[in-house]
């Protein structure tokens, strides 16, 4: 097993979790975000279940220096609680609320007709993915410019 096979496998398993929990369906997510009307708490159980599995595992493995495939453990440097964190999260929140799709489910929604409520390779999903990619690139270029200016 190399990291390419593992990556593919992990992507498959991840998306099975999304599909089983109904998270590729924006109307399910909107149900969770609709706090004042017909609230559906399911999303808490999805996040909670995943955290419950990952947290203890991470606690015991975080001090290791290399992974089982001999790769360097890549942990994010301690992130500051700053404007970027709060404004970025708020903008993401607006986008999430507008469509009911976040990055993982938006990709799996391409191929989960009947579950997601979209058609197979639905144009709506494809347009969302293109817009998301543009958003990512805009941020990347802005960030690189600010870092460049600082130096």
């Amino acid at each position, binding site marked *: 097993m190399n990291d390419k096979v593992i990556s593919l496998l992990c992507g498959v*398993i991840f998306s099975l979790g999304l599909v089983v929990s109904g998270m590729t369906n924006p109307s399910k997510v909107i149900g969770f975000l609709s706090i004042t009307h*017909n609230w559906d708490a*399911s999303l808490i159980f999805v996040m909670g279940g995943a955290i419950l599995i990952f947290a203890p595992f991470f606690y015991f493995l975080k001090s290791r220096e290399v992974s*089982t495939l001999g790769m360097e453990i890549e942990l994010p440097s301690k992130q500051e609680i700053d404007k970027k964190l709060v404004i970025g999260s708020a903008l993401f929140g607006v986008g999430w609320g507008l469509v009911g799709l976040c990055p993982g489910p938006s990709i799996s929604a391409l191929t989960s007709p009947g579950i997601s409520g979209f058609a197979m390779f639905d144009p709506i999903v494809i*347009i969302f993915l293109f817009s998301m990619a543009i958003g990512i690139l805009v941020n990347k270029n802005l960030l690189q410019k600010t870092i460049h200016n600082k130096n």
Partner: protein
Amino acid sequence: MNNFTPYSALLGGIIIGLSIVLYFYTTGRLAGISGIVENAITKKANRISNILFLLGLVLGPLLYCYTKEPLAIALTLPDHSFTITNSYPLVITGGLLVGFGTRLSGGCTSGHGICGIGRLSISSLIATVVFVGVAMITVTILQQFGIYL
């Protein structure tokens, strides 16, 4: 809460957790999807692995469609109690904000919400509270305009 599906939600969450554990255990990387998308687009290092992870996200649902018969009894699929948007301006705006916002803050539902909180990161907890809170306000406002029923 007549659409509440705690069992399938918890099972799905556990499956997602197992994927994140396996990925971290073997590759040493955290499975934050917005970060994987950014790296797949912009970084040469591990590009093929990142693309394969995303390909897996597309293949999984197809696999599920072929094997769901025995699972179908245990798992009730969510019904469409909320209408989803089919307005292109809204979808494009939403996509741009999701892409820009997640990368500005350094994570999305998986990166901050699951991996970050799982690592007991205070900044990820704050990020999650902010994006969930703002998304709830957004949906509530849209409902006032009759966009989500």
